[in-house]
């Protein structure tokens, strides 16, 4: 398991998973190296933080909170496997609010520990205008339409329910119980934790078998068609791009309880305004738009289409969940390797001369093989 994973969730923002880190110092090191790379990107995004089995005191919790906020990340929710850390989170929350109701039951405290939304953590109320612009650029008609489509796919991350009490106890064998004034560890243990499942981000998370790329879960053909038609605005006239999903609908669509309902959510289109350099890996469960170059050695993976407003020189994998209708388009097409669903195409060898891009091009699957053609406005 990697030390840090950034998992983008179509409807739930981004999850920063540092459950692979074994100490606070290590966690901070990985957070620094990963988050600073794309600091502007985090601004205004809904971010969740998973601390995994890290055991932290209240001081360390506020330390890590202020640490990530310095890096430009404002976590909406913080998850932890450790009851100690969760007690610490409650402690921090309480001291931030400066109210410590003496009558508050342990259950109430623990409930809050699950979905920490402390006052000290700000949350963006409005979606970023550039994200909306990207949505418009890619042709997604409305937020609700996109969400509807996204909902037909299996949710990437399952919160809650999956980790039982047994898991928690197993993760902390023979651990000495440390009590904080507000919360007892035993009580914390008795509540199932909202722990995100670790998700592999390598190669789009698709399960790989001996045959190479296996199709993880393919949308029914009709659904894909529907998706594409909506995206192109053929079936429905494009509504004004304004994110205002009805709260009830959002709640029904979202697999995640409480905290996110009625709030603006990260759309199924993720836009990044930066150059992706060698060694950087971005994966997203929707469409991916990169405003900038993708350099050799960088990898971008999306379940939907990939659009690069710049030069694509690295590896791009569209339709990573098996969607053979996914497309990759770029202004300058010089990729090392292209993958759409389970098809792979590689660039010609260097010894045959440099690849010369002839303007914006689009790659799609034609008769089972990846074909690249000049982009036309259709």
């Amino acid at each position, binding site marked *: 398991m*990697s*030390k840090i994973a950034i998992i983008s969730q179509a409807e739930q923002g981004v999850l920063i998973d540092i459950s692979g880190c074994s100490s606070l110092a290590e966690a901070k090191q990985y957070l620094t190296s990963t988050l600073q790379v794309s600091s502007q990107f985090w601004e205004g995004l809904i971010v969740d933080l998973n601390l995994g089995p890290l055991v932290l005191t209240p001081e360390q919790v506020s330390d890590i909170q202020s640490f990530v906020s310095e890096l430009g990340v404002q976590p909406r929710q913080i998850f932890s496997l450790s009851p100690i850390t969760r007690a610490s989170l409650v402690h921090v929350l309480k001291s931030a609010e400066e109210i410590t109701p003496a009558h508050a039951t342990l259950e109430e405290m623990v409930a809050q520990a699950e979905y920490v939304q402390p006052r000290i953590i700000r949350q963006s109320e409005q979606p970023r205008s550039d994200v909306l612009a990207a949505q418009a650029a890619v042709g997604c008609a409305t937020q609700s339409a996109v969400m509807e489509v996204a909902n037909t796919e299996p949710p990437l991350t399952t919160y809650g329910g999956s980790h039982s009490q047994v898991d928690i106890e197993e993760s902390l064998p023979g651990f000495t119980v440390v009590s904080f004034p507000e919360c007892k560890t035993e009580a914390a243990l008795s509540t199932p934790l909202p722990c995100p499942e670790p998700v*592999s981000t*390598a*190669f789009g998370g698709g399960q*790989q078998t*001996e045959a*190479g790329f296996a199709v993880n879960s393919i949308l029914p053909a009709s659904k894909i068609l529907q998706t594409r038609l909506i995206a192109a605005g053929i079936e429905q006239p494009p509504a004004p791009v304004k994110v205002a999903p009805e709260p009830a609908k959002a709640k029904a669509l979202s697999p995640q309880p409480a905290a996110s309902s009625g709030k603006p959510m990260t759309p199924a289109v993720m836009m990044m305004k930066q150059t992706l350099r*060698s*060694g*950087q*890996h971005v994966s997203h469960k929707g469409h991916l738009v990169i405003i900038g170059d993708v350099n*050799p*050695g960088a*990898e971008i993976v999306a379940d939907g289409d990939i659009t690069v407003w710049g030069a694509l020189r690295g590896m791009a994998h569209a339709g990573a969940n098996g969607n053979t209708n996914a497309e990759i388009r770029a202004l300058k097409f010089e990729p*090392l*390797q292209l993958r759409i669903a389970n098809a*792979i195409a*590689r*660039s*010609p*060898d*260097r*010894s045959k001369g440099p690849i010369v891009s002839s303007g914006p091009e689009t790659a799609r699957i034609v008769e089972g093989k990846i074909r690249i053609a000049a982009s036309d406005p259709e």
Partner: protein
Amino acid sequence: MTGRVIVVTSGKGGVGKTTASANIGLALAASGPSVALVDMDIGLRNLDILMGLENRVVYNLVDVVEEKCKLRQALVKDKRLPNLNLLPAAQTRDKTAVNADQMKKLTEELKGMFDYVLIDSPAGIESGFQNAIAGAEEAVVICTPEMSAVRDADRVIGLLEARKDEISQYRLIINRIRPHMVKSNDMMSVQDVLEILSVKLLGVVPEDDQVIVSTNKGEPLSGSSDNQKAGQAYRNIAKRLQGEEVPFLNLDAMDATWFTKVVKFFNPARV
């Protein structure tokens, strides 16, 4: 089949570990035996570029270790020689993605499949280096004739000596030597380096502009026989690794310019 596992290492960066790995690998494979090149520089993968195979990489070493794919799937077959295979490093991960035990297991598996397993180690002596030497039985230390490179090579040889039980022998390649500078006492000679390091010499590779050209082309020099300097040196090194006795190159003769050649022709005593 029980192959030989040879790690190519140096301590110092930029002395030519990866270039040597690619060239020796290609020269070995060209003479018959099956060869696996393993890039252990996780996060800074280069060997695929030198081999001109970067567009063929699908899976990598970390995927194999994490059992996301089979070893056979991750091996990239060379476009020139079918008996040469590359196991590329992961580019989007770092050296902590694997550990020494996993590397031992991996090299054991590779040993069963290939006559030679060449491991390209990362620079430094931290965990990446420790992982690279974990499964190795022999070592090739690369060193340039500079004080800093010699000191780092000395440190690495010390670390290799500490693992005598696993690593049966280690030999030295002196890379990028410039005979005219040695002659004018501006560069350490082969003897100077050997005096400090006191190890067995495997080869001496002269400085050669063609190395840069070959790197950019993705065609290791040792692959074609029409080059005289570095390419020939690497082919000789491959022969020595296979147990052949090959005399060291006469670097003075190689360094001769047309002018010195003319002078030498008329007056051999002057040069």
